[in-house]
């Protein structure tokens, strides 16, 4: 199976079987044929199926060690010739998984049938753990499970590629028709296979349009859905994040699970790891977010800007602004282009929103020199966040007097008055520096601290007005427009030289795209859709867009790893 597109561990895949190929997520019996279970005890020869299950022993999830060991010995004795699918009994004793993985590896299976999936799905931790181990170890393996359609989105999101449909017919026998509300409510017309078919199309559709996580987090059909997603979010956040493409579109935070989205985790860690305050900062300002994005375009931020300008004049170029928001926590002004999200605003903040925001703010404030004062122009829950952050960081925060919202006349006056106490002077150099910093920080976000410096050093140049082109010694390094960037091979070389970041190493002549099989090494920080440099002998020979995550490129053996956009 080749991975075409990711959304978290879930993926759109392409399976090639001789001259027949199909897309995943897929259904056995619809998109491909799958042999019935093949018992080790009374084995069958490979038949005329797309996928032939090798003889196996369908151990139960709760099988004790003694029995597993008896079975394992026998499975090593099987003649696997002609079989391309392996029945993997899911086991609570996960210490034995490795043994099964060795068989899968040794005989190079193309698909794995995840045994006991209907039992496993009720064991939150094991479901996620086993899927993850399988998925990460064998990126090109098609994982087949047997689950009801209402589990499809969640299972796909966590790594399942295909579903057996044969057991669904039992619902038809029982006269239970699947509905949008199953398993809470059933219809009377048997419809299992149709419903499964429809559902899988919709899941594919969702993957294509980057909406899979929505489905998963907003449709909790059973307690198992909620439990599994919670375990995945809290205990396997790295697994989800690793395969989550770099955010391009607005994220809609809808349910309480939204605040645990990988995008949120990523944002928090990028603020911590990839944000440094501009060097000339002499005052930090904290503002609340606005519904309109980027915040600068909103009415409230326009009013703040005016008040700040009024108080500080040229000194504004020495102020640095942080915007507080949920669930992203803290958005440095330069990154406001990147914080694309929308959230339910009912005025009720939960503890789960306040605490992480405060913690992130505290850590962010620690990035500024101790003597830089901090002024907060906030109201309601934002005040609570800032106070808590103040306590956590031990930094004093000066609060303006806010009444009737932050944009009331009185509040804005208080902002101006408060700021007047600080006498800041900004020079023309400050302004230019900040103009450059606005651009640099975005590159830092994508590639790490220093990337901005690399593509736009102090002696660099910016040309254009809307679409900014960046130059170093008359060679273009990249472009910047409203937070959207591109990098030239030359720019990427500079990033590579100074940061050793976002590289994919090859040792052949670059012609078209880079295939997974050709990737020697890759930066593990790479996420799907990231801009990466294709490096050969320390030279960037091309720039492209990652299809896979860095780690995955190394393990994967099939499909495109990097879509090359420009060759050097």
């Amino acid at each position, binding site marked *: 199976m080749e991975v075409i597109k990711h959304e978290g561990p879930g993926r759109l895949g392409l399976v090639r079987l001789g001259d027949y190929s199909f897309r995943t997520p897929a259904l056995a019996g619809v998109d491909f044929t799958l042999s019935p279970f093949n018992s*080790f*005890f*009374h084995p069958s020869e490979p038949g005329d199926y797309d996928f032939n299950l090798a003889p196996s022993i369908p*151990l*139960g*999830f709760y099988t004790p060690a003694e029995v597993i060991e008896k079975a394992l010995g026998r499975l090593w004795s099987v003649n696997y010739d002609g079989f391309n699918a392996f029945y993997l009994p899911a086991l609570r004793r996960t210490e034995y998984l490795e043994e099964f993985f060795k068989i899968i590896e040794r005989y190079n299976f193309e698909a794995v049938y995840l045994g006991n999936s*209907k039992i496993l799905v009720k064991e939150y931790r094991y479901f996620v753990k086993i899927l993850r181990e399988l998925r990460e170890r064998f990126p090109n393996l098609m994982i087949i499970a047997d689950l009801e359609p209402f589990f499809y989105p969640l299972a796909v999101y966590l790594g399942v590629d295909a579903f057996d449909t044969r057991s669904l017919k*039992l619902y038809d*026998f029982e006269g*239970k028709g699947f509905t949008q509300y199953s398993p809470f409510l059933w219809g009377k017309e048997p419809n299992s296979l149709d419903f499964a078919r429809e559902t899988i199309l919709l899941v594919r559709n969702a993957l294509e349009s980057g909406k899979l996580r929505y489905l998963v987090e907003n449709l909790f059909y059973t307690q198992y859905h909620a439990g599994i997603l919670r375990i995945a979010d809290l205990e396997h956040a790295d697994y989800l994040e690793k395969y989550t493409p770099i955010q391009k579109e607005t994220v809609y935070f809808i349910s309480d699970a939204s605040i645990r989205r990988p995008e949120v985790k990523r944002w928090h860690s990028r603020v911590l790891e990839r944000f440094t305050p501009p060097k000339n900062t002499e005052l930090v300002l904290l503002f609340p977010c606005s519904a309109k994005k980027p915040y600068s375009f909103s009415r409230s931020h326009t009013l703040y800007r005016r008040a700040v300008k009024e108080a500080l004049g040229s000194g504004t170029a020495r102020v640095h602004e942080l915007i507080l928001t949920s669930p992203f926590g803290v958005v440095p002004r330069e990154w406001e282009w990147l914080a694309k999200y929308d959230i339910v605003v009912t005025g009720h903040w939960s503890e789960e929103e306040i605490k992480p925001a405060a913690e992130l703010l505290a850590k962010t404030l620690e990035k500024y020199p101790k003597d830089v004062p901090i002024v907060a122009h906030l109201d309601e829950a934002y005040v609570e966040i800032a106070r808590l952050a103040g306590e956590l960081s031990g930094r004093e925060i000066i609060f303006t007097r806010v009444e009737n919202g932050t944009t009331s006349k009185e509040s804005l006056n208080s902002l101006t008055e408060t700021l007047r106490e600080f006498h800041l002077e900004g020079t023309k150099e400050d302004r230019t520096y900040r103009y450059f910093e606005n651009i640099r920080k975005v590159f830092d976000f994508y590639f790490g601290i220093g990337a901005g410096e690399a593509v736009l050093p102090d002696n660099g140049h910016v040309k254009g007005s809307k679409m900014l082109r960046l130059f170093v010694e008359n060679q273009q390094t990249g472009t910047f427009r409203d937070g959207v960037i591109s990098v030239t091979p030359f720019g990427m070389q500079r990033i590579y030289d100074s940061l050793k970041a976002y590289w994919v190493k090859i040792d052949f002549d670059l012609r078209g795209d880079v295939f997974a099989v050709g990737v020697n090494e890759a930066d593990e920080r790479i996420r799907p859709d990231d801009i990466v440099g294709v490096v050969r002998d320390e030279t960037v020979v091309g720039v492209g867009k990652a299809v896979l995550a860095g780690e995955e490129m190394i393990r994967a053996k099939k499909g495109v790893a990097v879509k090359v956009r420009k060759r050097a």
Partner: protein
Amino acid sequence: MTYWTSEDNVAGKPGTALFIILPTIGCYRFRIGKACYMCAYPTAAPKVKWSQEAIVDYVREALEKIKGKKGPFAVRMFTSGSFLDNGELKPETRRKIFELLAEMENVEEIVIESRSELVRYDAVKELAEIVPDKHFEVAIGLETANDDIADVSINKGNTFEDFVRASEITRKAGAKVKTYLLLKPIFLSERTAIEDVKESIIKAEPYTDTFSINITDIQKGTLYERLWEKSEYRPPWLWSAVEVLIWAKKKFPNKRILSDPVGAGSKRGPHNCLTDYDRVIGRAIKKFSATQDLKYIENLKPECRERWSYIVENGLLDWQLVMW
């Protein structure tokens, strides 16, 4: 410890069987921690060790139940272990019991049970000679002719070879062989389970006089129970039992094919859709067993049968049957 009578097949004819559970200490495999995975019989063994005399008295008491009544009777003695295990019953005790039986004319069939490795020529011969004109069978738990299943799914500790040897000894010693087969060990789909019994019958047939198809029922404290509780194992469908019995009787019309579907129609026993009709099928199987007449099981109402056919045809595993 108990005994009871039940309508059953006696040496080929309809009659009554007297079942006696002997209060021995039970199977030695269980005592050394190697019990069969489905078996909890030895947990029913008496807590206090009975003297050998007391055991004989117990048999005597049980036999009172049929004394002087009109036969034919079969006496089937179970020990939660092996009748031929000297650790359970001294040779002297066995002899005494057989002597009691020899005196009873209405008893036409005697069955004892033994693990195959405990079947010794002398022991069988001695007993056979005490009851020369009775149908004397040694029942051996083969369970399956597939050694892998015997090990992985049953933990039997015997192979098919062991069974063959025991069968040959038994016959040579003048007794007949009753072969127990287990319908649906764990880790088998319904389909494989049926297949396994059929293959086992074919392989064991030359060494067997009577087949007894034991249909799994869930016993307390066993591995089977653990898997069953978690919905990873489902006792076989009654339709599977019916299918196997019909097939076996047709294939080997001259062999006795017995089956007593314990717990039929309950969750822990063989069942179809747990409707009332399940019990009807259970009774039909007993009737067939007693009479060996296929009419009892060939004309059942196909209730729930389509579902069963589907599961068997598609080789669905038991965990796949879990539903919301």
